[in-house]
């Protein structure tokens, strides 16, 4: 990997045989590398041997050269990768999570027992359709967000790029499975999301770390919470399984996101953490605006209550869900090194941590 501090070294390692045939045959920086498969097969971790496992703090290589390949001088840039610092994108668990994503792959059209879905009372079915529509759209936003960032990441950090490719693929599956569920039982698609947080995620421009906070600390914990409650209150084996499988996927995404943000803050310092805390003040206002919209919560209340007749009882469970979500948001922010507290939380969101909000506001 060509880094600033390795420039001199690489000058001495460039191709020596420009004219002759087979001149490339000796062009390897670490000939004799022999990675061996472990218990989980031959993983990305297993091949991070010697120089191949040395992840540079910064890369000026703009040619897609694989990390540790033999550098050829005088090649023009192929791309400008704005994310070329390790602290911009890295997470130590990215390679492991990549392999896990592949091992735990599943198929929406085959693995889900769709035939276990039986006719439901109309309001209950439509509520499930509304929840499914919301979750499918959250997946779409995840796709659009990562799709526009992954190509800006330097190839020195291929573990992150390949992990994000799995997340893109997961997000496509999540969109697919929830759209399928909405239409699998005589239902329809519901209302689109209010869009405040979707807009924040898509329009984020300050950096991948900032975007990752929206994606993995603000949105993903809500998605994960919805999956967990979805599994707990599933109306049939098909829903039970699809929520369970989605939980696995989402937990993996969050694991990368939290690891990255924590790493970025550790590397870049407390000033960055303070900036991120301030950034979220406005975003929390948007989240509160979005959470005042009753559509998703009423749909959940009908599902949790088991029907329209028990919507009030169901709303008590929704209140718990919201409380859990906001609590988790605070906990995750603190874990990564951002000083989020109940005291500096947006006042509207703080109300969800208190009991007995009125139905429209719950």
């Amino acid at each position: 990997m060509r880094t600033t501090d390795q420039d001199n070294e690489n000058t001495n390692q460039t191709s020596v045989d420009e004219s002759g045939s087979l001149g490339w045959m000796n062009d390897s920086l670490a000939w004799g590398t022999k990675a061996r498969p472990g218990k989980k097969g031959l993983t990305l971790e297993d091949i991070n041997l010697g120089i191949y496992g040395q992840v540079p703090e910064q890369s000026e290589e703009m040619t897609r050269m694989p990390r540790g390949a033999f550098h050829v001088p005088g090649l023009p840039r192929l791309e400008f990768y704005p994310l070329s610092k390790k602290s911009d994108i890295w997470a130590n668990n990215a390679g492991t999570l990549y392999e896990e994503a592949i091992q735990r792959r599943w198929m929406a059209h085959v693995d889900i027992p769709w035939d276990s879905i039986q006719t439901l009372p109309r309001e209950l079915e439509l509520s499930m359709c509304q929840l499914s529509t919301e979750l499918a759209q959250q997946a779409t936003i995840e796709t659009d967000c990562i799709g526009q960032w992954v190509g800006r990441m330097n190839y020195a950090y291929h573990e992150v790029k390949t992990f994000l490719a799995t997340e893109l693929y997961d997000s496509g599956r999540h969109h697919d499975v929830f759209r399928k569920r909405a239409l699998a039982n005589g239902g329809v698609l519901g209302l689109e999301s209010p869009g405040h947080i979707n807009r924040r995620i898509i329009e984020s421009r300050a950096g991948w770390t900032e975007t990752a906070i929206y994606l993995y600390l603000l949105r993903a914990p809500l998605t994960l919470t919805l999956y967990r409650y979805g599994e707990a209150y599933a109306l049939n084996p098909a829903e039970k399984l699809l929520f369970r499988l989605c939980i696995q996927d989402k937990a993996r995404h969050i694991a990368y996101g939290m690891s990255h943000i924590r790493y970025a803050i550790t590397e870049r310092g407390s000033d960055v953490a303070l900036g991120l805390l301030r950034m979220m003040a406005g975003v929390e206002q948007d989240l509160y605006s979005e959470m005042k919209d009753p559509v998703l919560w009423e749909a959940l209340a009908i599902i949790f209550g088991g029907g329209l007749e028990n919507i009030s009882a169901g709303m008590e469970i929704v209140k718990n869900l919201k409380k859990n979500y906001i609590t988790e948001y605070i906990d995750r922010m603190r874990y990564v090194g951002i000083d989020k507290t109940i005291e500096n939380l947006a006042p509207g969101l703080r109300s969800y941590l208190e009991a007995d909000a009125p139905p429209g506001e719950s």
Partner: protein
Amino acid sequence: MTTTTQQRNYWEKAKDAGFDLGWLNQLRENIVIEEEAETSDNLTGRVSGSIPRPEAPKFGAYPFRTKKEVWGYNLRKLHEEFVTRQWSSATDIPWETLEELPDDIEAAECQLATFFAQVEFVAADVPGRFIATMSPDYQEVRLALLGQVMDESRHLDVFRKRALANGGGLMRMIDSVTDVVGGSTDNAREYTELSTRLHIVGEGNVLTLFRLGELMAYNDAEKAIYRRCAQDEARHVAIGVLHARYMKESSPERMEEIHCYLDEAENRQSSGAGGENPAARNMLTSEALAVLLGGGKDKVDEGQKILMAVRQKQVKEYFQRLKSAGMDDRITNGRVNPSLLEAYKAL
């Protein structure tokens, strides 16, 4: 089973308790049409068929919002194949079958693996960007491209693993990135341009090589890598052919433009400019291939002869794709690159 009257009572009770429930009425009236619209007004990332909210901010602003720009036939079926045929480079390759190879063969395998580790993810970076700019109303296209992104990341990974698993190492980076005349895959800003270059020509050339993996492989692990990558690559090529076929029927006015993309891509295919075709003359990978195909550095001449047959096969399969896409008139009307015709007739 509740009666209609009971339902009405529940509804009124809920309304009295302060619930809105207006959304339930909207859902009752929603009709989902599965046929994709010719144009999409979706600027909010909403799921196709869902109910728009007039107040939602229009942050989507997808540049690709017409079916004609992105669609392809049978993409739903192709997507299911993508999903069904996923595999793991960690566990589905019999790595234990790797045995020590002569240094020249190992170096050639590693050089080829370095090439693929460098170029394969381009076909993830670029489609990734396009997915994010395509209306979700054309979700089948997005899903197929997401499948490709996943495959390409696995290709980067499996070839890196191969280079580092058998006593070799990563070799020289691709040095044939210049001499590009016209547009390149990376630079494409229009989906049909991207798909023509990437799927029909670029991926097609690599597909031929992967299909001939038996000739380059020296153990079961390498055979498995090439075989599985060939399956993946065939799907990527299919995305392009299915799109081109659709374009021919829906947008005949764009055929000349597509032929221009093919003019440029054929030039690169034959010359090796841009470093996309590892079998092209002037590519250092073609030497590596000659070593592998011939059976050693002292049999490079033999290997070069086989490589000529490989190039011929690339052209034959390319012509077949043109035929399948309905663009094979260029083969007979004198437009196709002469060096491709030469390769076609060479043996």
